[in-house]
C-alpha cells in the first residue's frame, strides 16, 4: 500500500560529480520492487513538489532503501547535504517496477545510461538470468559499476571514450558482439529510442523505464504521461501515466 512517512538517513556519500548515494531507513523497503521509485519531499518551503527518485537497492533485511541521484536543483541539493540521522519525508512505493519474471533463465541486457543506472542494481540482484549489464557514462567518472559486477558481466561505454567503448551503450553492444532475448533499460530518451528501434529489429521485448516531471506521483494529476500506441485502459486516450501505469513500459506500447 502506498503511504507517506518519515524516513531516517542511514548514510550518504558522493559517488561522482553531482551524483550522491544515500541509504534511508523506511518501512517502505518491505514491499519495494526493482524499477519502482519513491518521492522525497524537500524541507525548503519555496519548493512544493515531491522529487521522484528510483530505488537503487533494498537491503537484505528489507529495512532500508538505497537511492543514487543526481543534483538537478534546489531539492536534490538539499538532499545531498543530509547526514546520518537526518529525517526526510518519503512517499512510496510508486510505479509498477520491472517484470522480473519476463527475464527468468533468459539472456538479458540490463542497460543503464547515466542516472538511469541505479534501478539496474536491485533488478540485477533479483533477476535470475544470464545478465549482460551495459552501462553508459559521460566520462570515466564511473559509479555503481563495481556493485553491478557482482551480478553479471559489465560492459561500459563513455561518450568521451575515457573508459570502455567510446560512444553509447548501443556501440558497446555492437563492439562486444552481444546478444539477448530480453532487454531491461533505464536512461535518457535518445538511448531509450535507440533501444526501442534495436528491439524492434531483433524482435525481442524491451522493458524501458521512463521519466517525466510529476506533481502527485500517484496517478491523480495526469502531469506525467507518455503517448501510447493503443488507447490506454485508464485514460481512454493515447496517454498512460508514467507514475502509476509505468514507469516501466514495453517499448512497443509507447510512442517516444
Amino acid at each position, binding site marked *: 500500500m502506498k503511504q507517506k512517512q518519515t524516513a531516517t538517513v542511514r548514510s550518504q556519500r558522493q559517488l561522482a560529480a553531482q551524483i550522491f548515494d544515500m541509504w534511508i531507513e523506511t518501512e517502505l523497503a518491505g514491499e519495494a520492487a526493482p524499477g519502482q521509485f519513491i518521492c522525497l519531499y524537500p524541507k525548503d518551503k*519555496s519548493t512544493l*513538489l*515531491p522529487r521522484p527518485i528510483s530505488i537503487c537497492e533494498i537491503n537484505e533485511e528489507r529495512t532500508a532503501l538505497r537511492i543514487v541521484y543526481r543534483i538537478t536543483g534546489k531539492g536534490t541539493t538539499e538532499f545531498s547535504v543530509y547526514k546520518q540521522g537526518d529525517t526526510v519525508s518519503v512517499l512510496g512505493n510508486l510505479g509498477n517496477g520491472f517484470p522480473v519474471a519476463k527475464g527468468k533463465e533468459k539472456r538479458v541486457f540490463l542497460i543503464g545510461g547515466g542516472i538511469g543506472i541505479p534501478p539496474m542494481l536491485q533488478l540485477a540482484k533479483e533477476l535470475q538470468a544470464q545478465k549482460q549489464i551495459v552501462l553508459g557514462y559521460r566520462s570515466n567518472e564511473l559509479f555503481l559499476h563495481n556493485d553491478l559486477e557482482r551480478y553479471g558481466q559489465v560492459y561500459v561505454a563513455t561518450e568521451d571514450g575515457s573508459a570502455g567503448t567510446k560512444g553509447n551503450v548501443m556501440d558497446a553492444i555492437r563492439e562486444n558482439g552481444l546478444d539477448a532475448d530480453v532487454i531491461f533499460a533505464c536512461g535518457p530518451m535518445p538511448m531509450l529510442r535507440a533501444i526501442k528501434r534495436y528491439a524492434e529489429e531483433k524482435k525481442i521485448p524491451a522493458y524501458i523505464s521512463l521519466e517525466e516531471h510529476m506533481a*502527485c506521483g*500517484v*496517478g491523480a*494529476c495526469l502531469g506525467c*504521461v507518455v503517448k501510447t500506441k493503443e488507447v490506454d485502459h*485508464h485514460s*481512454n486516450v493515447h496517454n498512460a501515466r508514467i507514475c502509476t501505469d509505468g514507469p516501466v513500459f514495453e517499448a512497443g506500447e509507447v510512442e517516444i
Partner: protein
Amino acid sequence: MNLKTTIAGVTLQNPVMTASGTFGSGMEYSEFVDLNRLGAVVTKGVANVPWQGNPTPRVAEVYGGMLNAIGLQNPGIDVLMERDIPFLRQYNTKIIVNVCGKTVEDYIEVVEKLGDEPAVALLEINVSCPNVKEGAIAFGQKADALYNITSELKKHARQPLIMKLSPNVTDITEMAKAAEAAGADALSLINTLTGMKIDVHKRKFAIANKTGGMSGPAIKPIAVRMVYQTAQAVKLPIIGMGGIANAEDAIEFILAGASAVSIGAMNFVNPYSTIEIVKGIEDYMKKYKVENFSDLIGAVEG
C-alpha cells in the same frame, strides 16, 4: 459541534472538498484518505468526448506553488459515468462533477447525461476552458459569455450549478454578478492564475504549453481577496480555494465569506491534507467555542 454546511440546498457533512483536477475521481487518493470523511469529492473536469490533453512537460514547480497545463485530458463523460461515479457512490460523501467543453453544446451534452445520475449532487462548470467560438478567450473571462453559458446550462441541468470563476479578470465581482443574474446556484473560486516559467540555462519554457495555471500557497492572498470581494457582491454560496495548505488557510477563506473550501495542489504535497484540515477546523471551533460552522462564514470583522 456542527460542521455541516449547505451549498445550493445540498448539505455537506463538513466544508472540506477536493479541487477539480487534483484528486482524479478519488480512486488514487482513497489509498491515503477515507473518502467517507470528506464533505465532497469534486472530480476531474470531464467533457462530452475524451480529450488527449497537452504534450509534456505539463507541470513545473514555482516558488511556493506549481504551474500545470494538463490540457483537460479526460476519458469522456461515458467512462466517468460507467467507472468513476459507481466507485464514488460507495462512499458517504457528496459527488460533484466538474464539466468542461469547447462549445456550449459540448457542455450541454455532458450536463444532460449527468442529469440521469442521481448520485451526482452538484455540477461544477469550468468556464476557463478554451472557447472555440470566441477564439482563445475563455467563457469565464467575459461577463456576457459567462452569462450566456450559465443561462443556457440552467435550462438543461437537473442538478444545481456551481460556476467556477477564473481569477484572470479585471473585476471578479462583475463575473460573479453575471453568473448570479444568469441563475447560477453557487460559485467556486479561484481557478488557477495564468503563469509562466522559463529555464534560463536551456532558454526554454518549463512547460510545453508555454503558459500554465498557477496554484499553491503562493496564490492564496489573491484568492482570499477575490472570495471576499465576491461575497460582498453576490448572495450565492461560495466555495473558496487557492493555495489552502492547512486549517488556518481554510478558515481564512471561510471568514472571508466562503461556505466551503477545496484543497487542490496541496494534495500533491501531503496526500492526507484534506482530512487533516477537517480535523484542524474542528480544533479551531473547539478552541474558540464555535458551535456551528456556519457562524464562521464571512465572520471577518470590519
